[in-house]
């Protein structure tokens, strides 16, 4: 159901093969008459991690919201696999997973119900796959507990459990490590590195130093493109 | 002129109060509509001049 999408080289089974996933050039973003950044360019290939850094309020979240097509209040072009993003918006949205500051976890619902909704429009999930994804984020035994009785860290882990379920090619994670304990952070970092090596591209914002094989990570400081 | 005398004109045949109050309100609304943008522009110019003067002092 890839609408209006022609790829450069097709793999054996007719599925598109892509190396350069995302290209952004001359991106300009203004927030309430305050220029956040202008002339921002970067390209993101498959199997790469992009760490977006910058002081608070320098526009990191705005950049991620633009990349997640949450807002079209910007100038500049964004290309997904060589196509202008507006032309292939549906295909792009199928291939992106966005976890924002507020993870979108509903208190009264249990983790399973939350995940069934969060991943519901990408794929139909069997109970088993959800349960072992929750186990991987260390929430074994909390499957049927309503989320308002979980701690903030646990609620964020429920959102991060989507990473173990998702087939999307591009992950956009806004401060994924907040409220996660040290062991959880290391576990998540190794998982992200392993996924990146298998060809997934990840854009994330975090303040601490990622200990990941450095060949994988590209850094982008938003403040460099500011006023 | 439809009315014989000025007095007749003001009285408007016992409807004078209604007619003139309407025209009075109309005049007030029109003048208000003209006055607001002009006042806005004047206020903005003063603010801009002060800003200019402040910048001039800083240099």
């Amino acid at each position, binding site marked *: 159901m890839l609408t209006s999408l022609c790829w450069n080289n097709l793999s054996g089974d007719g599925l598109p093969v892509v190396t350069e996933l995302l290209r952004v050039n001359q991106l300009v973003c203004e927030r309430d008459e305050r220029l956040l950044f202008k002339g921002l360019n970067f390209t993101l290939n498959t199997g790469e991690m992009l760490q977006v850094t910058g002081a608070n309020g320098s526009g990191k979240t705005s950049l991620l919201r633009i990349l997640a097509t949450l807002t079209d209040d910007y100038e500049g072009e964004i290309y997904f696999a060589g196509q202008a993003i507006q032309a292939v918006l549906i295909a792009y949205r199928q291939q992106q997973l966005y976890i924002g500051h507020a993870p979108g976890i509903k208190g009264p619902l249990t983790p399973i119900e939350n995940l069934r909704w969060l991943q519901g429009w990408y794929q139909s999930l069997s109970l088993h796959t959800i349960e072992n994804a929750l186990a991987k984020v260390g929430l074994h035994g909390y499957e049927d507990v309503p989320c308002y009785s979980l701690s903030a860290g646990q609620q964020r882990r429920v959102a991060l459990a989507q990473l173990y379920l998702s087939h999307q090619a591009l992950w956009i994670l806004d401060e994924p490590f907040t409220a996660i304990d040290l062991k959880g952070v290391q576990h998540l970092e190794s998982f992200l590195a392993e996924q990146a090596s298998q060809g997934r591209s990840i854009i994330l914002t975090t303040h601490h130093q990622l200990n990941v094989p450095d060949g994988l990570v590209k850094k982008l400081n938003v403040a460099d493109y500011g006023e | 002129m439809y*009315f014989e005398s000025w007095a007749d004109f003001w009285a408007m045949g016992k409807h004078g109060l209604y007619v003139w109050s*309407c*025209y009075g309100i109309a005049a007030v609304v029109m003048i208000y509509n003209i006055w607001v943008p002009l006042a806005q522009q004047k206020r*903005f110019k003063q603010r801009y001049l002060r800003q*200019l003067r402040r910048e001039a002092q800083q240099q």
Partner: protein
Amino acid sequence: MNWTWFHKLGSPKWFYEISSRWLPWLVILSLLLLVTGVVWGLAFAPAERFQGNSYRIIYIHVPAAFLAQATYVFMAIAGGVGLIWRMKMAEIAASCCAPIGASFTLLALLTGAIWGKPTWGAWWVWDARLTSMLILLFLYLGFMALQAAIDNKKTAARASAVLALVGLVNIPIIKYSVDWWFTLHQTASIKLTEKPAMPAEMYYPLFICLAGFYCFFAVVLILRLRAEILHREHKTGWVKALMSNKC
């Protein structure tokens, strides 16, 4: 079809220059039309058989009512253009229209009510036209309230544009349902003085007043747009240049 004039229309600088040339002529024209229309209507038009001289309020009430509705339609279209083509000028025009439209709706309401006293004997009568005018006033107030409630100027303009378009779709529905409701509950006293057929010499001043009101609207809108442009574009070079040589 080259769209250059359309995009030129969108640039505030171009609009400011053009308006400073056209404004004086427009002011003279609207003054001329208004004075002739009012004087003709008040002093020279014949009195009406049933209502006597109180019908002369029509020369204010009807143009104000027409203008109120026309301004809402203009506002919704300007908002729509601003929303779809992201044109800054259209957004500014829509936000400047609202107060003008609201003031004319209020004028139409007040003059309608005052006119009702001698003809229907009560200050406020739930007449179909007056009721629709009252609802139009609520639509304007809703538009302005939404515009004021959202801090980010761009979002405020786009959100209120959506509201104006929704309101535009609803105006005919409101008008017909109020008319239908009014004919259902029509009291005897109002039926008697349905719109009287007006002889020609009463119509001429009405058209002149109407034209005068439209020109007046154009003048006031341009004045507001100029003030708003200077306010929003004060960072740009041309405003700075304009300001420094003006004072």
